[in-house]
């Protein structure tokens, strides 16, 4: 029985630490500190970084990643993954473009595009929860499938003719500030997702599924239904990101946002979400996306070419996961003698 008692007591001791310590000494705050450091260093040393226009473009650029990262966080916390998000965004973009081109009002076309996104997510969800296939394999397949449908529908042509009002709105800023209006949408969605994940029974269920789907099932959590809902949400929000991207650049193309899924996943993992599931916080993820975005924007302004940004992104991702496992290893080594007593 002592063997069982030892880890339990250790867990309690961890949680018995004061709240301020738990908040300060966490993975999420490490990302926040890194973000603040990057902002300070860049403001001092990079010319034109601390200007409103930089902020505007930075936020416009990372808006799709911020949006898709919200449902992706929830999906990864359940221990699943969705690689098809960028393809869903492209499919929504092409749907919007073709329907609008054939005379449908933009608002209605956007609505249809959102439905298409949700349907695409439902297909993923069906294959994963009902048929019982691994999400990694399914979404590699639908990554190709949805992208193929998007490219097949439009070929190499692009739809560039959109209603002026929406085009302007996509690029507009809040009042006289430098912050783009799309940030309002992101903020509202982020708050909703954060509340759902951290303060509802549904959200606790997401963590429980990630820790052990079987245990979650026996505690009365509807595992399959939860996952299905999350994949539909993932498709829906990806479609929203695709629509925003289309309007911002007023271009609906089949190859829009190719490769975005990897940027989203990198940001989510950098933000402290465990790829094994069961661990993570939405605040950390938002900081992770901002960190990658800010670093990229600062490096670009310092006329470092985009390739170095890729190297930095990759290194950050690896450093963040390796550091977690090294810390865990040290923790284990340290507490090992206690077990022997």
């Amino acid at each position, binding site marked *: 029985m002592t063997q069982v008692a030892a880890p339990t007591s250790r867990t309690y001791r961890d949680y018995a630490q004061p709240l301020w310590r738990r908040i300060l000494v966490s993975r999420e705050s490490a990302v926040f500190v890194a973000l603040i450091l990057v902002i300070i260093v860049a403001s001092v040393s990079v010319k034109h970084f601390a200007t409103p226009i930089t902020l505007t473009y930075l936020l416009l650029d990372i808006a799709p990643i911020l949006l898709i990262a919200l449902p992706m966080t929830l999906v990864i916390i359940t221990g699943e*993954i969705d690689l098809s998000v960028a393809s869903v965004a492209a499919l929504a973009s092409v749907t919007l473009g073709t329907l609008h081109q054939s005379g449908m009002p933009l608002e209605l076309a956007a609505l249809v595009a959102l439905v298409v996104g949700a349907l695409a997510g439902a297909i993923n969800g069906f*294959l994963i929860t009902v*048929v*019982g*296939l*691994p999400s*990694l*394999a*399914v979404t*590699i*397949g*639908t*990554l*190709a*499938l*949805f*992208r*193929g*449908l998007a*490219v*097949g529908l439009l*070929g*190499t042509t692009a739809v560039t003719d959109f209603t002026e009002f929406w085009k302007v709105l996509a690029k507009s800023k809040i009042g006289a500030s430098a912050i783009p209006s799309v940030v309002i949408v992101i903020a509202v969605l982020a708050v909703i997702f954060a509340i759902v994940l951290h303060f509802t029974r549904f959200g606790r269920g997401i963590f429980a599924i990630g820790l052990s789907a079987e245990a979650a099932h026996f505690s009365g959590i509807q595992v399959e239904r939860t996952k299905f809902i999350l994949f539909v949400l993932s498709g829906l929000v990806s479609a929203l990101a695709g629509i925003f991207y289309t309007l911002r650049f007023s271009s609906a193309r*089949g190859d829009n946002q190719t490769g975005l899924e*990897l940027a989203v*996943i*990198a940001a989510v*993992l950098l933000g402290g979400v465990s*790829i*094994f599931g069961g661990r993570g916080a939405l605040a950390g993820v938002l900081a992770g996306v901002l960190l990658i975005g800010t670093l990229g924007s600062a490096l670009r302004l310092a006329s470092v*070419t*985009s*390739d*170095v*940004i*890729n*190297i*930095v*992104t*990759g*290194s950050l*991702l*690896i450093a963040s*996961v*390796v550091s*977690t*496992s*090294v810390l865990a290893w040290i923790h284990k080594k340290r507490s090992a003698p206690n077990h022997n007593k």
Partner: protein
Amino acid sequence: MTTITAPTATNRLLSGLGGFAKARETGILLALVIVVVAATVKNPNFVFSNDGFRDLLLSPSILLLVAVGQAIVIITRNVDLSVGSTLGLSAYLTGRLFIDFPGIPIIAVFLIGILFGGVLGLVNGALVAFARVPALVITLGTLYIYRGINVAWAGSDRINASDMPKSFLALGTAQVLFIPVLTLIAVAVLLVAGWYLRNQRAGRELYAIGSDPGAAHLYGLKVTQRVLVAFVVCGALAGLAGVLYSARYGTVNSQAGSGFELEAVGAAVIGGVAIFGGSGTVWGAALGAYLLFTINRALPILGVQDFWQRAVVGALIIGAIVLDRLLALRQSRKLVEARDH
């Protein structure tokens, strides 16, 4: 323990014949044959012309090498997303070697390319095996890093056919008795890998590790070492593929091979390699690679616009995993029946 009985000679012969008919790979082979026959009926030049026959064998060879490496890694319940970037770096290195060291022997370039790929694979393997971080995350990071190094190195520079010796470029299209040299190299690698995984102790241990890493470790298998070697082999094959890539296409820019990782994983999955390890063969992955490429070439002939090819690839991947799932369910039902009687 009753399940592990040595097969008698007659049993072995029968199960050999029945095994071929029932093997997962046979289905892929059948699909491949159907595609080739259908395309040939529509346009006899698809096979019965010099170029057609050569292309049929030649084009998939490079993907085949990468897919074989990928299959070996996936069998150990890992994945290598960096193969596309490794291929690109090795292809660019090949060009640089010919430019910077005029008169360098071709065999040396091959060896350097393979060795270089192996080192990149070693980095992946070391991070995965020692830091105990999921391969998906690590190789997503190195995908960015290797590609970033490639872009930083090459910039907007491009290796052209005129930069490489004619004898090297001739390798890309050379034939021995109607069979392209590239195909011979790929098939030789495939034969060795297939034999090793099936008949050698270390090869079988890869399957054991993929089926249950924890059990394999408790059983005393050298999990860390085997996983490391799998990644090195995968990297080395991607490196070899890079050298062949530059011989085949003659031009290499900094984006060579991008997106190859998903095609390689797709080929392995189509060929029946389970994404969570422990089952599948390199034969299947090779057939998957051939099917992927051949479908791409056959679609325009069959009257499908080639814009749709990615959609077909996606449908194929999903079809393959659904099929695998159904087969596994039937198998487990049979085993349960056998146990209950």
